[in-house]
């Protein structure tokens, strides 16, 4: 789960980290009053969306006067911002963050991730701040410092000093940076984060550190014990259909092809999409109905996938383990009775109670295309999408 920059900075503030003076605003008028309150003679107006690349896309504007704050905020709020991470449709900007403008001396990168190689929390730092850290790592790996944290004792001061020195800091700056690293680690650990990034962490001309930007994502599986974080979720930033699907305990991701997919298990769901692609088609979505799919769940999956106007054929591929083919078949019959389905449906069932499932389907008199295997199912779906009679 992702949160906005202004929310991340609020968390940073709570952990004692230095962030620029500023606040979030929903309207241009509010943006001006925030600018007045934080004071100074220059401000930054930043579009708040859950996607990177805002600066290059015009989502971060400098203002030398309150009038300019007003103009920038008016232009940004209510507009769709297209960045390299949003796709062509862009993201609606519903709010901006207004902050004091800073006189920057140097830019650094500071972040924490759960590193899959070491399977531990790892601190990442670089003197090449303000750039995409993956690009820095690819071009100049020696510029990226990694420090693995032992979960038994947590991040130690000496590790922070070592990292601070490695990114070229000296004197009192080492202690200041080390302090921020410790605070960032505590925030990451306490809140069950998966990733946090300060990019850039800057030094100002008077020698202070400031987190100029902040990005944070959290473990969805830990939200049961992080109610304050769960409250920060912004549903406007998510695909409404994905939100609806998750409400039915379905895992749905919209894509842009014509073959709607309903599959059980994430691995089989991906492999089914891949197979569709190998037979020359394109999947319309990823959908994992999970284990124990009840008839209601199958019916909901049908509805969600068929709401997508691009879907020209529906492919159902279920390998029942804890699921049972007879339950799945009942779900299909229910779904097809409850709604008019204007596209061909390819059904491939396998596994537990297969015969009972097939019997239910064949006795229902429903019009569907039968497939025995994965290859068969993918091929028939692609032929059907191309208008062939299968």
């Amino acid at each position, binding site marked *: 789960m992702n949160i906005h920059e202004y929310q991340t900075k609020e968390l940073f503030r709570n952990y004692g980290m230095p962030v620029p003076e500023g606040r979030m605003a929903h309207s241009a008028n509010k943006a001006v009053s925030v600018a007045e309150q934080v004071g100074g003679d220059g401000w930054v107006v930043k579009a708040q969306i859950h996607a990177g690349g805002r600066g290059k896309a015009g989502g971060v504007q400098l203002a030398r006067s309150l009038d300019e704050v007003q103009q920038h905020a008016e232009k940004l709020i209510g507009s769709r911002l297209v960045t390299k991470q949003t796709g062509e449709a862009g993201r609606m900007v519903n709010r901006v963050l207004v902050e004091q403008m800073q006189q920057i001396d140097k830019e650094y990168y500071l972040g924490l991730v759960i590193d899959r190689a070491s399977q531990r929390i790892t601190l990442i730092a670089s003197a090449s701040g303000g750039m995409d850290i993956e690009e820095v790592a690819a071009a100049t790996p020696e510029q990226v410092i990694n420090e693995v944290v032992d979960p038994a004792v947590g991040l130690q001061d000496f590790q922070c000093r070592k990292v601070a020195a490695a990114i070229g800091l000296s004197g009192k700056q080492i202690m200041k940076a080390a302090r921020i690293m410790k605070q960032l680690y505590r925030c990451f650990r306490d809140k069950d984060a998966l990733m946090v990034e300060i990019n850039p962490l800057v030094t100002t001309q008077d020698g202070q550190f400031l987190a100029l930007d902040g990005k944070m994502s959290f473990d969805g599986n830990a939200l049961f014990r992080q109610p304050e974080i769960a409250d920060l979720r912004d549903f406007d930033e998510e695909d409404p259909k994905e939100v609806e699907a998750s409400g039915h305990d379905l895992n749905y991701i919209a894509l842009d092809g014509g073959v709607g997919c309903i599959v059980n298990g994430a*691995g089989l769901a991906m492999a089914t*999409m891949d197979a569709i692609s190998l037979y020359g088609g394109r999947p319309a979505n990823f959908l994992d109905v999970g284990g124990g799919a009840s008839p209601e769940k199958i019916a909901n999956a049908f509805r969600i996938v068929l709401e997508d106007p691009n879907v020209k054929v529906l492919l159902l591929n279920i390998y029942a383990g804890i699921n049972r083919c007879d339950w799945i078949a009942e779900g299909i019959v229910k779904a097809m009775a409850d709604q008019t389905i204007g596209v061909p449906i390819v059904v491939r069932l396998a*596994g537990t109670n297969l015969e009972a499932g097939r019997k239910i389907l064949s006795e229902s008199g429903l019009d569907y295309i039968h497939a025995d295997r994965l*290859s068969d199912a993918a091929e028939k779906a692609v032929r059907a999408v191309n208008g062939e009679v299968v």
Partner: protein
Amino acid sequence: MSILVNKDSRVIFQGFTGQHATFHAQEAIRMGTNVVGGVTPGKGGETHIDRPVFDTVKDAVAETGADVSVVFVPPPFSADAIMEAIEAGIKVIVVITDGVPVQDMVRVKRYLIGHDAIIIGPNTAGVITPEECKVGIMPAHIYPKGRIGLVSRSGTLNYEAVEQMSELGLGISTSISIGGDPVNGCDFLTLMKQFADDPETDAVLMIGEIGGSQEVDAATWAKAHMDKPLIGFIAGATAPPGRTMGHAGAIISGESDTAQAKMRRLDELGVSVVQNAAEIGQTVLQSVNGRSNERDEAANPSCVSSV
């Protein structure tokens, strides 16, 4: 032989009296698995599906000699249950639970250091050695006994592969789903090493996914140390970058995470790479046959020259 579990394994279930654990314990018993009891704190002394219930794993181990545990404990309490099993001396801990917080698993893996135990999962379909021991939620009847070692992330894709292989007459020595989480108890490499040493395994099928480098790490080791055919598949060639594809760990965070990049690396490392999931069984068969032909030729070179 097989790996991890066999007919001599003494199995307990943690969260024993819950609905799912009960069902799957019964299924395991039906297949002939030696289920010796279970643990549900507060219900010690009771009997459940004709097996004793214990308050602690320590009691269960002391009374039954259990060495394998299947964990069905809900996510908020899973880490505690796994560490309890580790501390009590359980050797193989299979964590079925889906949704265990990642940082809990980071701590569990730290706790594991210095203990002689293997954790499979979380979010796994489990482990099965056909006709001997089933510690998981897979349908046992689709797994014929045989000589292919199978390790996958996914459960249902594992079933798919087994069906394709069994249609071609290939059976399974042991099958393991390691689960889809980014920090999981056991990686592909650990199991690859066990399969390499298992005399009942002739070839290994590894079914991975986008995200992370576990498949490549295992294949790198296999190239240097394993003299058995290795067949590989990576799911997610059509997955969009930056999205979590159902499994928390199935996410493309960089170029090397993509299915295409991982399959390319596996190919370079001498793995027989399956491009189409519908051809997994066929590829395994060709790989196994190819190897036995090579062996025949090596054992009897005169045959080759006389042809």
